[in-house]
């Protein structure tokens, strides 16, 4: 089984053409700016949007674990007790609760992913496996999934943070047509501060991937946060790293930081730590774009 949080159709920002993106649950990284925090933990989780809660108490009544407490102005979920069985989700009349993460067999994912085949054919699109971190999913199910999709002759993109064992990337490279490879911060210490681990493994894997699969289409994606990844220095170092290792990406996408995911932390019973983060201004973004262009990269996009 693979744990999926969402299968998004008409996905147009995760690779070329019209695509379907499968988001898997679980990630080795903890980026401060992460806008999909529900994909960080590997286990399914309940999300509770208390703004919608009417305090009717039905979730409390139905919970077999007695993990929910509802009072006049409170609705608390004991996540230690919660098994994410989803009964409170079905019961909630206000639609305030949802279940992040569904365990799905390979064939079900393939069937869902192939539904838009005609759109892929027409637009040059395909299927993107993303996350969380897709390559952190258990290999005994992930490889059959990729093999099956490959067998469907669909254009397959892997959206990865690169922070996985090399063997996982090596195995995926046999099936992937496109790599959406995230690079965040080049300075190892800053990387560790904001992301939870240093970047050695990520950078090594990218260099190895380029050598292993010289014809694979690689798109480099850089979440751009002012003063962290969004600095002249970081952009120059990234450009330098790519040049030095003969990584000639098909596109470089500079993705400006946005706050749209911050509300989801509360629904997971967590606190958003990125409150101080900012997106670079449009001028700054254009300036970063210019840095890459000067370094000889032709296709540099702002946004996906």
């Amino acid at each position: 089984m693979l744990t999926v949080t969402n299968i998004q159709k008409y996905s147009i920002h995760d690779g070329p053409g019209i695509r379907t993106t499968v988001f898997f649950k679980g990630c080795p990284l903890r980026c401060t700016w992460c806008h999909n925090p529900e994909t960080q933990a590997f286990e399914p989780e309940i999300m509770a949007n208390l703004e919608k809660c009417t305090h009717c108490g039905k979730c409390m009544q139905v919970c077999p674990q007695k993990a929910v407490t509802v009072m006049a102005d409170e609705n608390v979920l004991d996540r230690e007790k919660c098994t994410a069985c989803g009964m409170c989700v079905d019961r909630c009349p206000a639609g305030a609760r949802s279940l992040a993460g569904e365990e799905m067999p390979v064939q079900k994912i393939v069937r869902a992913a192939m539904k838009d085949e005609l759109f892929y054919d027409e637009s040059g699109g395909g299927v993107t496996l993303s996350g969380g971190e897709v390559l952190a999913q258990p290999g005994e199910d992930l490889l059959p999934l990729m093999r099956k999709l490959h067998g469907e002759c669909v254009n397959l993109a892997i959206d990865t943070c690169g922070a996985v064992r090399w063997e996982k990337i090596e195995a995926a490279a046999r099936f992937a047509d496109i790599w959406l490879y995230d690079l965040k911060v080049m300075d190892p210490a800053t990387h560790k501060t904001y992301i939870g681990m240093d970047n050695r493994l990520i950078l090594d894997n990218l260099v190895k991937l380029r050598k292993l699969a010289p014809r694979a289409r690689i798109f480099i994606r850089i979440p751009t946060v002012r003063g962290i990844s969004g600095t002249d220095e970081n952009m120059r170092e990234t450009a330098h790293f790519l040049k030095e290792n003969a990584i000639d990406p098909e596109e470089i996408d500079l993705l400006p930081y946005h706050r749209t995911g911050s509300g989801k932390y509360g629904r997971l019973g967590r606190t958003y730590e990125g409150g101080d983060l900012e997106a670079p201004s449009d001028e700054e973004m254009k300036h970063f774009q210019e840095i890459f262009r000067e370094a000889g990269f032709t296709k540099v996009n702002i946004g996906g």
Partner: protein
Amino acid sequence: MEERGMNDRIRRLRRISTETPVHIDLERARIETEFYKENEGKFSVPVTRALFLKEYFSKKTLYLGDDELIVGEKGKDPQASPTFPELCCHTVEDMHIMTERKIVPYHVEPEDIEVQKEEIIPYWTGKSMREKILARMTPEWQKSYAAGMFTEFMEQRGPGHTCGGDRIWTRGYAEYKEDIEKALGELDYLNDMDALSKAEELKAMAIDCDAICILGQRYHDLALKKAAAETDPTRKAELLQIAVNCAVVPAHKPETYWQALQAYWFTHLAVTSELNPWDAFSPGRLDQHLIPFYEKDTEAGILDDERARELLECLWVKFNNQPAPVKVGVTLKESGTYTDFANINTGGIKPDGSNGVNAVSYLILDCMDEMKLVQPNSNVQISRRTPQKFLKRACAISRAGWGQPAFYNTDEIVEELLNAGKSLDDARCGGSSGCVETGCWGKEAYILTGYLNIPKIFQLALYDGYDTCTEQQLGPHTGNAEDFATMDDLWSAFVRQMKYFVDMKVQGNNVIEKLYATEMPAPFLSIVTDDCIKKGRDYNAGGARYNTRYIQGVGIGTVTDSVAAIKYHVYDKKDLTMTELLAAMKDNYVGHDDVFRMVHDHSPKYGNDDDYADAVMKDVFDLFRDTVTGRPTVNGGTYHIDMLPTTCHVYFGDVLLATSNGRLAHVPVSEGISPEKAADVSGPTAVIASCAKMDHASTGGTLLNQKFTPGVLAGDKGLDNLASLIRTYFAMDGHHIQFNVIDRQTLIEAQKHPDDYRDLIVRVAGYSDFFHNLDKPLQDEIINRTEQSFD
């Protein structure tokens, strides 16, 4: 409001067109009343009709405004709306309502209300088609009509729904008259028992040829007179050229590009002055009709692209100057707009099947982009042979967010026409007009007869034919839902209710069709429609080569989800009883949160590429189609279906209490073949995949609306993706798709501050309209239409 137009002339013309309030013009009604008082009973019906048109064109006030290059108005001036008391004689109360209502008002001068009261009403009372029609309908029909089971198109407006074919551009009316006189001479009074009535019809057509030539002659004279008084040499030369144009057309075939446009416009005025046919009239494939003139004139050096485009923009202003005939009552609810649905097709294929895009096609795209007018309705025809450049240019205009152009699948239209029995040659010369309706241009009368409230028919199947909204028995007794042991039992009840109301609608239609055939012929429209001259038969009496009547189904999304919710919860999963569901519906789901959640959120929904829901959609669609299609019409035609709503989905929702899909009472039902509002949660590809499961080829047109926020379609990539969506939908045999590209917040702001957004145009259904012209439920609905945004 933004000033648009390629130069000062067009901007001035456009400003007059968009800023002049729409007003009622009684000149036509007065001339007609005087004429009828004098002449009623002296001639045959068709000849009387033709003599009246001749009288009107001989006496009507002419308008030739400053800057104009194409001349002629239906009424006295731009935005004048003549009335047609022979079809619908407005009461004094009607006149007060139309001038005072907030939405789609028609200004009436107080003295005109007096004229209506003293001159028009006394003569026409009891004689208008509306009164004759309503008097002949059965009590059952009256009850069901009033309860909103269906609407009736011909109770205020004449049948029309057609487009011109090739001949308008290649023949003048002096030449038409020769054809008519030849046909008159060939009548066989010995063996043909209809020879006399044919003779009267042909005589009427010949008189109408004179009528339009008189109008042309009068404009010639007026242009000369204005030229003589004109001091500016440039304008003087223009006026002299207008005079020359009006000397050539409409009597003779046009020789130049400019004359071709003027020739069309005279025909348009005559068709829409004779009666007030639905969808006005259209030039059809304008680009293909104009290209020979464009090529000849540009080679001769008398036309360049700038002038060619300027003349197109002048024509666009002319279309926009003509508000739809004023509507009241149910007809206003089903079609609450100034738009008269003239629809110009660009692109497509040539009669030999090859790619039809030409140089004029691109000029038309530039013109529609520049003018941003709600009229004419502009669409592009996309076939497999259409160049990507053309499609992308059209996508770029559509992306600018005002709903035009709409995209039509030419290959599918040909297939629909072939399926309906047309020859390949005629099918390739057809297209779509009005909202999305398919027809063979210049050769077919394809008459929309009214909308059918499919969700309400299903609702009656739950309640033994009883209408819970108006609290009366409307349908046959088919049993109460609580007594149905199986889904098949419920379905059988639905089938019987469907048949009952389609039978009722068709019986009514038969009477109306017959009334129009005998009492309200359209000899002018018959001149330009093959084979009316040859047959000596009127357009309204089956004279066209092909005769089709459409019934338009509304609410497929709502009814699909309603049926699916019952099938899924009550009969398949058995986690809900019919009694519980009906109790919740009765209370409009208030106090039934659990039931509401089940049917609203945990039930298969059409528009998500969900095979369970989509199979239900197919069953409902097939039932509707098979109940209607193939029935004979009075004048030798055949019934077919369309799937489009105009604004009728709002009215049909208003007369419907809560439905079993969780839709609340009085909320609009789904429009066109689009999913129920906010039920499509899987993105546009899923919507398209669901809609494509319907058998479009067996319809006469379907309408699919998609709303996007601008961000989704940003950049060249966004344009490529939009083009791919269209190509894929059309590869799946979809008929039509159109886009609203506007963010929700903008619409909410526009609703709060209508004055600040007076120029905001949105695609409503088969047409675009100013957002501030829409009433609140429709505005709400557009705001709520699922936004396909994935930021």
